[in-house]
C-alpha cells in the first residue's frame, strides 16, 4: 500500500484544482448524458482532453492524452472533479464500453477510425444487444446477418437501445453462423445508424421520457470488414464490452458525485432556516451512505491497481455492477426524500427538465431501477457472482436441455 503523493502527483493535484477554479464556469451542468452532447458539452470535453483530464491513458495516435497508466493520477483527477461538483466529461456507452473493447481486441484500423471521434463526443454509439426474446438470455439473440457480396445483410429487432434516436453508430450482437451452437454463432458488428433499413421507434419509460428505443433491421447492409474480431467471436467480444459496461454502471466516482450533491442539498437552509444536516436522523442516513460510498471508492482503487498489475480481480470485479447500482438507487432515494413534497413537481419533457434538480433527481430515482435491470439484471449478476466468483454450481437446465 502506497498512497503517498510524489512531487509530481502533488503538482498534478494543484494543477487540476487550479484548472477547475479557473474554468468551472465553462463546464456544462452535471448529469445529462440523456441527449446528444451540445456545443457546451463538446467544448468542455475538448478542453478536458487537451489537458489530459479525460482519456488520459489512451494513446495519442488514437486521440487520447497518451500518459502512462497511473492509478494515483486517475484518483486525483476523479477526486478533484467530484469534490468540486464539476462535470468530469462525457460518460456514454461508446466511451466507456466500446472504446476499451476496441483497445482490447479491435484492429489497428478500427482503433484509429473510431476511438478519437468517440472520446471527443462527436460519434455517439448505442448498444444492440437485447431482443424481445433474449434479454437475460443474451446469447439466444435471433437478429441475423447473412453474408452477401461482401456485405452483412441484417434482419431482426433489438430493444432497450438507449440513445439510438440520436446515435451515429451501433455495436451490434447478431447471429451470423446459424448452424453453429448458440454461443458460437454470434458476431459483433459496427453499424452506422443512417444505413437504409434501420428504423428506430422510441420506447417511453416510467420516467415519462423516451430514453430507450426499439430498433428494427430490414435488409440492412454493412461491409463485412465492419466486424470486431471474427465471425463467431461475437459472444467473446460482447462479454468484453459487458465487463466494461458493468464497471461503468457500478462507477464509484459517480456514487461520490451523488453523495456530494446530496450533502450540499442537506447543508442548504430550508425555508424555516434549518438544515437537514443538523438533524440527527437525516445526518445518520447520509453518513451510512457515505460509509458505503467510501468502501466502493477504495474497492475501485484496489481494482485499478490489480488492473495496472495485470492481476485478475475475479470476485472483486464481478460484484461491482450489482453493488454499485443498488447503492446508486439508495443514494437517489435519499435525494428525493431530502427534496420531500416540494420536490414532487415533475415535468420531465424538454430542455428545462435538465435544469430542474427536483425533476432530474426523480428521473434518476426511476432510471436507476433501469440500471439495476440493464447490463445484466441483479439476478443475473448474482448468478455470475455465485457461479464464477464463488464457484457454486449452475442451476440444472430445465428439461435436461
Amino acid at each position, binding site marked *: 500500500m502506497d498512497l503517498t503523493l510524489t512531487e509530481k502527483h502533488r503538482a498534478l493535484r494543484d494543477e487540476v484544482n487550479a484548472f477547475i477554479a479557473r474554468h468551472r464556469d465553462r463546464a456544462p451542468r452535471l448529469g445529462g448524458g440523456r441527449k446528444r452532447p451540445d456545443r457546451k458539452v463538446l467544448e468542455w470535453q475538448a478542453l478536458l482532453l487537451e489537458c489530459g483530464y479525460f482519456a488520459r491513458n489512451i494513446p495519442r495516435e488514437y486521440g487520447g492524452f497518451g500518459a502512462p497508466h497511473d492509478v494515483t493520477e486517475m484518483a486525483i483527477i476523479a477526486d478533484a472533479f467530484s469534490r468540486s461538483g464539476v462535470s468530469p466529461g462525457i460518460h456514454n456507452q461508446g466511451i466507456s464500453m466500446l472504446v476499451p473493447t476496441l483497445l482490447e481486441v479491435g484492429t489497428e484500423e478500427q482503433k484509429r477510425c473510431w476511438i478519437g471521434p468517440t472520446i471527443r463526443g462527436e460519434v455517439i454509439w448505442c448498444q444492440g444487444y437485447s431482443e424481445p426474446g433474449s434479454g437475460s438470455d443474451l446469447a439466444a439473440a435471433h437478429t441475423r446477418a447473412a453474408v452477401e457480396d461482401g456485405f452483412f445483410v441484417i434482419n431482426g429487432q433489438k430493444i432497450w437501445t438507449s440513445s439510438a434516436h440520436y446515435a451515429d453508430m451501433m455495436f451490434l450482437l447478431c447471429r451470423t453462423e446459424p448452424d453453429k451452437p448458440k454461443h458460437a454463432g454470434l458476431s459483433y458488428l459496427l453499424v452506422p445508424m443512417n444505413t437504409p433499413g434501420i428504423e428506430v421507434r422510441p420506447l417511453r419509460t416510467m420516467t415519462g421520457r423516451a430514453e430507450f428505443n426499439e430498433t428494427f433491421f430490414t435488409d440492412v447492409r454493412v461491409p463485412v470488414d465492419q466486424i470486431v474480431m471474427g465471425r463467431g467471436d461475437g459472444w467473446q467480444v460482447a462479454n468484453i464490452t459487458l465487463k466494461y459496461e458493468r464497471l461503468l454502471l457500478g462507477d464509484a466516482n459517480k456514487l461520490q458525485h451523488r453523495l456530494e450533491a446530496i450533502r450540499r442539498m442537506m447543508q442548504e437552509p430550508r425555508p424555516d432556516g434549518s438544515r437537514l444536516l443538523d438533524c440527527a436522523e437525516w445526518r445518520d442516513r447520509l453518513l*451510512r451512505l457515505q460509509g458505503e460510498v*467510501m468502501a466502493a471508492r*477504495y474497492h475501485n482503487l484496489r481494482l485499478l491497481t490489480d488492473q495496472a498489475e495485470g492481476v485478475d480481480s475475479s470476485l472483486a470485479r464481478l460484484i461491482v455492477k450489482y453493488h454499485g447500482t443498488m447503492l446508486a438507487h439508495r443514494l437517489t432515494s435519499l435525494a428525493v426524500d431530502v427534496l420531500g413534497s416540494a420536490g414532487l413537481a415533475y415535468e420531465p419533457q424538454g430542455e428545462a427538465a435538465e435544469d430542474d434538480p427536483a425533476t432530474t433527481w426523480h428521473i434518476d430515482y426511476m432510471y436507476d431501477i433501469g440500471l439495476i435491470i440493464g447490463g445484466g439484471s441483479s439476478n443475473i449478476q*448474482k448468478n455470475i457472482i455465485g457461479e464464477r466468483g464463488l464457484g457454486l454450481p449452475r442451476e440444472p437446465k430445465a428439461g435436461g436441455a
Partner: protein
Amino acid sequence: MRFGLTEDQKLFDHSLRGFLSARLPLDVLRRLAEPGNGFDAELWKGLGELGLQAMLVPEEYGGAGLGLLDAALVAEALGFHAAPTPFAASQVMAVRALQAAADDVQRRIWIPRIAAGEIRIGVGLGGMSGQTGRTALRLQGGRLSGAVDGLLDGGAATHFLVYLADGRAALLDADATGITATLRRSVDRTRPLVDLDLAETPAVEVLEASNAPLQVAARVRHAGRVMLAADMLGAAQAMLDRAVAYAKERVQFGRVIGSFQGVKYMCADMATMLEPCRAMVWYAAYAQDAIPEEAAIAANHAKAHLAEVTREVARLATEVHGGMGFTDLLGLHFQFKRITFDRQVLGTPERCRHDAAMAQGWIGA
C-alpha cells in the same frame, strides 16, 4: 501508488493463518474459549514467536516497526480464526498510546516490555469511546479512584491503561492495592470484559507528555476501531467461506443446495457486501499512519460500516447452514459472537458515524 498489499505482507499473512489454522482446530478453540478470559499462554507464546507482540513497536525499542495496516492483517486473521488472544488493545492501542503520550523515560521502560511479550495491557477508554457502562475516574496525588467498565484485552492483563476525561491516561499494575478487577465472560467467549473498581490505586505511570491529550486519546481510539473493523472482516469472511463450502456439499431434493438460486443469492449478497470492506479496512489502517487528515473519518466509517455489513453476513451465513448453523456443533457461532462483540465495544455504529460527522465538521464538538 499502489492500493494493495506487498509481497511481504502477503507472506506474513499466509504464515500467520497457517499457524492459527494448525493451532486452533474447533475442539481446541472450544476448550480455550470456555474460561472466557481471552487468553492462552501457549497461543500467546506462539504468536510472540511470529512477531505479533513486537510488530508495532519501533525498532529502537526492540520491535519490528511495522504499521497499522500490518496490524489490521493480523486482526483480520485473528477474527477469521476467532483466536482467544489479546491484540487490539494490548498490542496496538497501548503501544500507540505510549508512543504518543509517554515521556522518554516511560517509553524506554514500557515499550520494550510490550515488545518482549512480558506484559499485556488491558485498555479502558470508557465513555470516551462511546461504551456503555460506568466511567468515572479521579486522579489525585498519583492515585486513581472510581470505576471504569468494559476494558478490552483485560482478561489476563498484567497492567491496565485507563483514560481520564481530560485525555490523560494512567497505567496501573493489575496487582496494585485498591484494584478490584471483575472479569465478566462476554457473549463472545474468546474475549472477556473487565470492570475496574479503583480505590486510591497508585498509578505506575501517568501519560501526560502530550500537549494535546484528547487528540492523542482520539488517535488511540481510532487505531482500536480499525482493529475491530479488521477483526469483523476476518470473522465474517470465515463465515462466508464456510457457508459457500457448506452450500457446495449439502444435498437436498437431489441437488447440492448451492445450485438453488435462493441459497446462491444469499452467498452472492454476502460476497457483494463484504468484498468492498476489505479495501476499506486497508485504507482506514493505512490512513492512520500515512494520511492524518483522513485518519478519523476513515477509522470511524470503517468500524461503523463493517459492523453493519458483518451483522448481515453473520445472519445470512448462519441461515445458509440451516438448522446446523444454529447448533453449537459446527462452531460457526464463535465468529458470529466475535462480530457481535466487536460491534458494541469502542463505540456502536451510530456513535462512530457521529464521530465521523464531527471529524468532517458537519457538527460542532
